[in-house]
C-alpha cells in the first residue's frame, strides 16, 4: 500500500482525508499485530526526544503517550503546567521555543485554548501533536475511538453512530464527528438542547433530543462525560435530571443488545450510564484505553520518524 501520510504535525481530524485516517489506523493495526513484546524495528523511534507538554490536567492521554513513546524506544519527558515556567508568566510561545532549543523532536500538547496546537505549529519547527486543545479537537482520542469501532464493526460506511452528552464543550465530539463523517458513518447527536446545538446539523449530522429515537438501531453509542463541575445550573438543572432524561439505564432507555458502548472516560457511573451497562459485553470502554496506546504509537511514528514509509 502506498504511503499516504505526509504530515509532520497532527492538529486535528478536520484536516485529514479519509485515506490519511485509514492509513494511520492501518499503521496502528500493524503495530497491534506485531504484539506487545516485539515491536517491528521499522517503527522504532530510538534516539528521538518527545516532550509531553500538558498544561491541563490529564491522566489517560498523558500516560498513553508516555507508554506509546517508550514502546517505540523514544525518550519522553512530561511537563505539567505547575512545574513549567508558564506559572511564572512565560508565554506558550516562549516555553515551546525553549523546549525546541533543548532538542525536542516532537511536542505533544494539551492546552485549554482552542487553536493552541495550530498556533504552536506556526511558531516552531518541531512536529506538534495535539493532545486536546480546549473544545476544538482531540485527534488521538477520535482516532482510537474509530480504531476501536473499526475493529468491532469493520468498515464504518453506513454505520449508525450516536454521540450522546455534552457536545458543545467537547473536543472529543468534534474530532469524532469529523472522522466518522469522513469515513461515511451516519452520525446522530443527542443530549440536552443547551449542550447539543441544533445548528450542528449543518455539519451533516442528525440532531435529536429524543433519546429513544437517537439510539434506535444505533451500531454504537459514544457517551461523553458530563462536565457537571461547570455546567450544572446554566446548561442543565442537575445530574439527577440529566440522568433521568439522557442516562443509559438498564431498566429504561437502553441500547439494543448489539449496540456497542464507548466512553472516552472518566465515567460518571450512574449518571451517563448504569454500572451494569458500562461493564457489559457490549461495552468497549476498556478496549478504547488499550487501543489508545497503539494508536498513539502510530501517531508518534508517522509524525516523528525520518523514514515513515511503513510497509503495510
Amino acid at each position, binding site marked *: 500500500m502506498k504511503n499516504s501520510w505526509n504530515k509532520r504535525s497532527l492538529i486535528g481530524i478536520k484536516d485529514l482525508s479519509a485515506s490519511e485516517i485509514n492509513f494511520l489506523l492501518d499503521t496502528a493495526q500493524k503495530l497491534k499485530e506485531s504484539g506487545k513484546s516485539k515491536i517491528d524495528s521499522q517503527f522504532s523511534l530510538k534516539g528521538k526526544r518527545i516532550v509531553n507538554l500538558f498544561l491541563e490536567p490529564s491522566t489517560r492521554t498523558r500516560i498513553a503517550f508516555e507508554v506509546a513513546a517508550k514502546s517505540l524506544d523514544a525518550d519522553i519527558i512530561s511537563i505539567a503546567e505547575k512545574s513549567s515556567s508558564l506559572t511564572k508568566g512565560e508565554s506558550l*510561545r516562549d516555553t515551546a521555543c525553549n523546549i525546541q532549543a533543548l532538542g525536542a523532536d516532537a511536542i505533544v500538547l494539551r492546552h485549554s*485554548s*482552542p*487553536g493552541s496546537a495550530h498556533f504552536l505549529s506556526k511558531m516552531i519547527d518541531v512536529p506538534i501533536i495535539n493532545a486536546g486543545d*480546549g473544545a*476544538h479537537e482531540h485527534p488521538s482520542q477520535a482516532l482510537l475511538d474509530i480504531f476501536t469501532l473499526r475493529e468491532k464493526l469493520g468498515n464504518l460506511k453506513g454505520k449508525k453512530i450516536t454521540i450522546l452528552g455534552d457536545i458543545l464543550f467537547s*473536543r472529543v465530539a*468534534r474530532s469524532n464527528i469529523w472522522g466518522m463523517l469522513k469515513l461515511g458513518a451516519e452520525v446522530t447527536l443527542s443530549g440536552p438542547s443547551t449542550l447539543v446545538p441544533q445548528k*450542528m446539523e449543518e455539519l451533516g449530522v442528525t440532531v435529536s433530543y429524543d433519546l429513544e429515537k437517537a439510539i434506535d438501531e444505533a451500531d454504537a453509542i459514544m457517551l461523553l462525560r458530563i462536565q457537571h463541575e461547570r455546567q450544572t445550573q446554566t446548561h442543565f438543572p442537575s445530574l439527577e435530571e440529566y440522568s433521568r432524561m439522557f442516562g443509559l439505564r438498564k431498566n429504561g432507555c437502553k441500547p439494543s443488545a448489539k449496540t456497542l458502548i464507548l466512553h472516552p472516560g472518566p465515567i460518571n457511573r450512574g449518571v451517563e450510564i448504569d454500572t451494569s451497562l458500562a461493564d457489559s459485553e457490549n461495552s468497549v470502554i476498556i478496549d478504547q484505553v488499550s487501543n489508545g496506546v497503539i494508536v498513539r504509537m502510530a501517531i508518534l511514528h508517522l509524525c516523528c520518524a525520518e523514514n515513515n514509509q511503513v510497509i503495510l
Partner: protein
Amino acid sequence: MKSLYLKDGIVVDPANSKLDKKNLFIKNGRIDDVGSNEENVNNDTEIISLKGKYIVPGLIDLRCHVKQPGINFKESIDAVSKKALSGGFTSVLAMPSLSSMADNPETLNYVRETVLQKKHVKIYLSGCLTLNSRGEHLAPLGSLKEAGIVAVTDSPNSPQNNQIYCKAVEYASMFNLPIFDLPRDLSLSPDASAHESLMSLKMGLKGYPRMAEELFVQRAIMVSKYTKARIHLTSISSGGSVELIRKAKEDNIDITCDVTSNHLFNTESGVEEFDSFSKALPPFREEEDRQKLIEGILDNTIDAISSGHQPFNIDDKNQEYDKAPMGTLGLENAFLQSIAIVNENHGLGLIKVVQKMSYNPSRILGINNNTLNKNDVADFFIYDPNDNTTITRAIQGNEGCNLPFKEKVFNGKILNTYIKGDCLYKYRNDF
C-alpha cells in the same frame, strides 16, 4: 502671516451633498475666502494647484482608543496621530480607557496639559459613564464636563446593570453630554472570543451571539424612548441591530449609531485559521451581517463610520486565540476602505463617506460642523482618487500592529492633511 491658496480643487460639501469646483484661500487657520478671487495672494502665500483633486473636510473619529500617558509601548499619541493624519482624520474622540481611567477631572486635566498641547491630530476627550467603567457607580459627569469632555461612555464596556444604565443616561443628559454605548450583554457571552455561529462551534470557541448585542441595542432604544435622552450606539456589528435601529428611527427615537470600517469589510472567516489579528471588538460576524451593515450605511440608518482603532502590539496578539485581546487598528484604512465599500455599490460614494466620517460625527458630538465655508476652521485633506495606497501591518516599534490584514492595496490616496491650515501630514510636495 503665511497663507495658503488652493487652486482648481473640488471641495466636498457633505452638508449640501455636492461637489464644488472652487478655490480656497486660507489664513490664520481658517477659510478666509472662497471662490476664484486671487487678490488675496501675496508673496507669503503658498499656492497649491490641485488640478481636479478633492479637498475633503477633515474626518472625525468617534471611537479611538488612545493609551498614553503611561502605556507607551501600546501606542504613543505621536503614533496614533501619525496614523490618524495619514488616514485623513483631523479629530478623534479618545475613549476613556486612557492609561488611567478618565473618571475624574484630575486625570483629564493631566492628559490635557501633558499630551494634548502638541501639534498633532485634535483629540477630543470622553469620560467614563461609571467609575472605572465598571458599571457600578456613576462617574462625576458634571466635573468631567468642566474638565473638558465632550461625550461619556464606558466603551468598550457597557453597564451590565439596567438601573445604573438608566440613571447614568438620565444624569448625563442633564449636562447635554452625548452617551456612547458599545452594546454588549456580557452575561450572554462569558469568555467569548468569536462571533457565535457554525464556525465558532466548529472551532470550539465560545461565541458572542448576535442576541448579546441586540438585547442591549433594544435596551438603549427603550431607555432613550422613556428618558428622551440621546444615545449613540457605537460599533454595531449585527444585522439585527441595524433593523432595530431602523425601526427606532422610524418611531422618532433619538438614537444614532456607527459601525467601524473594518466591520463593513470583514467577516468571521479569520476564525477558521485562529487568526488573532482578525479578532475584533465586537467580533466580525457573517456575510449577511456585513450586507445589512452596508445597507444601513446606504439608507442612512447608520449615521457614522468610525475606525474603532484599538492598538495592541505583537506580543499581545501573538498568543493563543482565546487569550489574545479583541481589537483592531483602523485609522489608516478607515476612509479608503469605506470608499471601496460605498463605491462598490453606489456612484457618489465620496460624499456619502464624508457625511459618515466628518459631518455626522460632528453633529453627534455637538462640535462645529466643518464644511469648508468661509470662516470655518481649515481642517481638511487632499484626496486623489486616481492613485492608490498600500497599507501594511507594522510589526515593530512602539505602535499597534493589529491591522486585520497583512497588506492591502486601496484605490485612492490621501495626499496632505491640514489642521488649522497647517500641513501636519505630507505625502508629497508636488501635485
